[in-house]
Structures are given as structure tokens and as C-alpha cells.
């Protein structure tokens, strides 16, 4: 790396901390960061200023209806998750060989989402005859090395597991997010990361019966309510 390169990247530090670089610029900057402790140190130095910005806004009280509608959803989902977890408890004896090799956090996430959301992880691992594996179509222009496959048990009522390979790890607060396409709408599913080797897995907990496709896009960490780009990967059902 030449001194000139470093100087030009240094100019981007403020924009990076504020999230004001374009995707391509951010990716280039993050590649530079890997080998530049000076820039990493400068980012850590400026980060508290950026973190303070949301705290500068005038404090306004949210309407009570916001909390009540939020808790209504959360309570319902907690009941469903609890019930599903209890029903699935015997599944512990079953093996999950194809998850071996993924990062522990991914495995934990896939297990938690799969088991708690009522998805038939156990059924897939138990080699039941009605498990279908569907290959994904990928956008070669954006993720040329990627591939994916979706394992669907039965008619998809219990969701599915999507496994991917060759996906570029995302930086700068971005993650992959799955979607279910149904009758012209897309329903958000969990987000997921991939390891440095480009491999990852995500449970798609929605009922897939009657759905047209499972899609994947790149979104801000935490996930989005609607896709912010064309799908980079899709599995037709």
C-alpha cells in the first residue's frame, strides 16, 4: 500500500463513520481497513461522536398504541415459539450432520430459529422421504461464485432451510436477508451472515405452501421490511 493510497482512504474516514460512502466505496475502504491499524484507530476515536448523534434529537414520547401493538405481536410469537419448542424437544436426539463446519453462532441461530419456529430441522436430519432439495438461481453478475439449495419438508408448511456457498461476506453493517414471495408480495424472513469461506445457512420459518419463491437480498443489519435491491439469489418453489 502506498502512502498516497493511505491518505486518500484517510479522507473517507468521516464519511465511513457517518454511513455516507456508497456501497462500492465502503467495500474498498473496509478492504483497506483490514491492513491499516491507523485508520482503524481513527475510526474508534471518531465513533463516539457518531454514536452521540442519535442522542441529540429532541425527545418525544411515542404513542402508547405503538407499545401495545408491538407487544401484541411479540406475545403471540413468544407463545408460538414456546409451544413449538416444547413440541420439538424430542428432536434433540437427532443429528444435524450437514450443519457441521459452520460457525457456532450460525449453527446456534439456525437451530434456535428452526426448532423454536416450528421448522422441521429434525425431519430433514431424520432423512424423511418427503424432503425436497431445490437448487437456487443466482445473479451471476453480482455473486458469480455463489450457489444455494433449499431443503423443504413436505409441502413447505413448516418452512425450509436455505444453505448457501460462495457468497461474499458482507461488511459495514450489512447482512443477507431471506424473503418469501407470495402472490406478488414479499414477506421478510430472518437475516444471516456467511463465514469467511462464503458458507452459511438460514431457517425460513414461514409457511411455504402456495408461495412462489424464496429470495435473498443484501440489507442493513437488523433486516428490512421490504427488499432494498433486486434478489441476488432465488429459489422457485
Amino acid at each position, binding site marked *: 500500500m502506498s502512502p498516497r493510497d493511505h491518505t486518500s482512504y484517510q*479522507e*473517507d*474516514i*468521516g*464519511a465511513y*463513520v*457517518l*454511513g*455516507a*460512502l*456508497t456501497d462500492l466505496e465502503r467495500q474498498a475502504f473496509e478492504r483497506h481497513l483490514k491492513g491499516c491499524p491507523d485508520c482503524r484507530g481513527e475510526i474508534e*476515536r*471518531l465513533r*463516539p*461522536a*457518531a*454514536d*452521540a*448523534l*442519535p*442522542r*441529540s*434529537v*429532541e*425527545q*418525544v*414520547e*411515542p*404513542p402508547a*398504541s*405503538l*407499545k401495545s*401493538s*408491538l*407487544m401484541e*405481536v*411479540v*406475545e403471540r*410469537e*413468544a407463545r408460538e*415459539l*414456546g409451544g413449538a*419448542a416444547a413440541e420439538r424437544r424430542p428432536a434433540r436426539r437427532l443429528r444435524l450432520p450437514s450443519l457441521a463446519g459452520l460457525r457456532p*453462532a450460525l449453527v*446456534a*441461530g439456525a437451530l*434456535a430459529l428452526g426448532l*423454536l419456529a416450528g421448522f422441521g430441522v429434525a425431519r430433514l436430519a431424520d432423512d424423511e422421504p418427503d424432503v425436497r432439495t431445490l437448487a437456487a438461481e443466482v445473479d451471476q453478475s453480482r455473486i458469480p461464485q455463489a450457489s444455494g439449495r433449499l431443503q423443504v419438508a413436505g409441502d413447505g408448511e413448516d418452512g425450509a432451510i436455505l444453505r448457501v456457498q460462495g457468497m461474499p461476506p458482507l461488511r459495514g*453493517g450489512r447482512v443477507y436477508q431471506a424473503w418469501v414471495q407470495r402472490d406478488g408480495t414479499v414477506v421478510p424472513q*430472518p*437475516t444471516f451472515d456467511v463465514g469467511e469461506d462464503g458458507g452459511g445457512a438460514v431457517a425460513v420459518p414461514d409457511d411455504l405452501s402456495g408461495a412462489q419463491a424464496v429470495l435473498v437480498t443484501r440489507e*442493513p*443489519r*437488523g*433486516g*428490512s*421490511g*421490504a427488499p*432494498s435491491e433486486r434478489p441476488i439469489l432465488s429459489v422457485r418453489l
Partner: protein
Amino acid sequence: MADVAGDIRNLADEEVMQLVADGNPRAFELIYDRHGGAAFSLAYRMVGNRVAAEDTTQEAFLSIWRSRLRYDPSRGSVRTWVLGIVHNRAIDTLRRGSVHDRARDTIEGVEERFEAAERTEVEVARREEAAGVRSALDTLPDDQRRTIELAYFGGFSHSEIAELLGEPIGTVKGRMRLGLDKLRQRLAEGHAAGGFA
């Protein structure tokens, strides 16, 4: 579970998040009680109307509930993490343009919210903290403060800001960095000292 519910309000955010990760709705409710106001305030500041701010806040908290395994204490406080998620959601909302479609909802209910009384010590502390950071921001040169606000609250990229202000991109980037550095110094010098954990 009853014991947990009884003691939960004494727990630090990071410990509460562990209960949220176990699917505990009471723990999630506590996180909302502690940070929902700041989250809604940020969303309102960014998207500028009531309905879109409610939608943005609700989407952010539901994503926290549904992806609760992903909180990483090494990357900052729960509050910073929550506000970061709200910020991302608000930028999504701005870029979808849905704010403009719902502009007619802007006026309704505004007075009610702005007249909300400072009812608790926590709310008083939050308002004082906000005033402290605003005061620090106000010490920046106007061009630096404006650039930072357009980037952070407006969701604009440096090139969009350069176009908006009719300034070279290098100037805009320089203002961002200088402004953040000055803001950091002002905060460290004691504007709302100790309030930014």
C-alpha cells in the same frame, strides 16, 4: 419465570438482552420501555412524520425481537445498538420515499407528543443528555454541522451532499471528519459529561 419477572427491572441492559435471546417477552418489553422513547425520537427526527416514525420504530423493534441472537456486547451498549438499527430502518424508509406519500399525517398528534411531560428521572436525564449533545453540535462551524446532519439524519451520501451544497466532494468529506473530531472533543470536554456510555 415469575422470579425472573420480579427481578428483571434491576438487571443491566446486557443481562436483559440475554433473557430476550431466550424469547422472554417481559425482557423485550423492558428493553422497549428503556429505549423506545429514544428510538421513536430518532425515527421522528429522521422521517419527519408520526405514522412513518411509528412504522419505523415498530419494524426496528420487531427485527430486534426476531433477530435477538445477534446482539454483540463487544460492539457497544444496547442503546447504541438499538439506535443503530432504528437509524438503518429510517434510512430505508427515507429511500423508499414512503415518507412523502404519508406527509398528510405529519400534523396530527404532534402537539400531544411535544407537550409530553417530563415525568420520570430517566426522561429528564434523556432530555438533558439530548440538550448536551445539541449544545456540543451547535459549537461546530455551520458548514460542518450541516454536513454531518445531512449525512446522519438525512441518509445522504457524500456525493449527494456535495451536489446539494454545490461543494467539491473532498470538501464535504473533510467537513465530516473535522466536524466529528470537534464534536468528539466537545463531548469529551464535558458537554453532558458521562452521559454517553
